[in-house]
C-alpha cells in the first residue's frame, strides 16, 4: 500500500497507489491517511484512480479519515472508478464528499457538495 502526496494551489493531493481499499488494509489506510494529512493545508484531494475495488471497510476508513482531519481541513475525492463510485452512490456517501471526475477537475470546476 502506498500514498503519494503532492501539493497544488495550496491543496494537498494524495494519490492512493493501490488496487483495493478493503478490510485487509482499512486500518493501515486510515493511519497513513491521517499521517499524510497531519499539519497539511485546509484542502485535501484524495485521488482514487488506481483503486478498482472498495468494500464497506474501505469506505469506513475514508469516512474515518475525514473525521480525523483538523477542524479547518476538508477531504475531497477524485477519479472514482465505476466500482468505487457505485459503493459511494449506494450508501449515499456521495452526498457527504465533494467528488470530482479527475484531480484536474478539482481545480477547474465549481465544487458541488451538499
Amino acid at each position: 500500500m502506498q500514498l503519494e502526496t503532492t501539493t497544488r494551489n495550496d491543496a494537498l493531493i494524495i494519490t492512493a497507489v493501490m488496487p483495493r481499499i478493503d478490510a485487509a488494509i482499512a486500518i493501515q489506510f486510515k493511519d497513513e491517511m491521517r499521517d499524510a494529512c497531519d499539519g497539511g493545508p485546509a484542502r485535501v484531494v484524495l485521488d482514487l484512480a488506481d483503486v478498482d475495488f472498495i468494500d464497506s471497510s474501505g469506505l469506513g476508513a475514508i469516512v474515518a479519515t475525514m473525521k480525523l482531519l483538523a477542524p479547518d481541513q476538508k477531504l475531497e475525492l477524485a477519479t472514482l472508478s465505476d466500482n468505487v463510485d457505485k459503493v459511494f452512490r449506494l450508501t449515499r456517501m456521495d452526498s457527504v464528499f465533494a467528488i470530482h471526475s479527475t484531480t484536474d477537475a478539482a481545480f477547474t470546476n465549481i465544487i458541488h457538495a451538499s
Partner: protein
Amino acid sequence: MKFAIPGTEIAVRNGLADTISALRVLNLSGEDYGTIELVLAEVMNNIVEHAYADSPDGVIELTIQPKERGLYCTFNDNGHPMPDGTVPLGNLSSLNCEVDDLPEGGFGWFLIRDLARDLEYKRKCGKNILTFRIAIELPNLPVS
C-alpha cells in the same frame, strides 16, 4: 463451483480473486463482476469479523451455482451464530449530521441486502448457512 477460504482478511482477499477468476468463464460485464465481488466480500468480511471473531482457524465454504436467474450462492461457516438468530437489517444511518457523527460502519449488510435477492439464514448443527441470489442475467447458460 466450490471454494474453501480460510477465515482471515488476507485469505478473503485472495479467495475473492480466485472466485472472480473462476467466474470469468461466464463472460459477464465488468459492472457485474464488481457487484459480485462486493457482495461476496461483504459476506466474507462479516464472517471473519463476527462469526470467526475468536477462531483464526475457521474456514468459509462458498458454493456458487450459475443459473438462468443469476448466481445462487451458499456460504457455510462454523462460527458464532448471527445475533438474535437473524440477518441484521442493515439500515443506513442518517447522513444529515455533523461530520463527527457520520457512521464509519454498518454499510456491509445494507450493501448485501441492496445487491442480493432471496437472502436466507439458517443455523443448523452448529453451522451458519447463508443463501442468496445475485440477480444477473445468464442467458447463455446451457439449459439443464
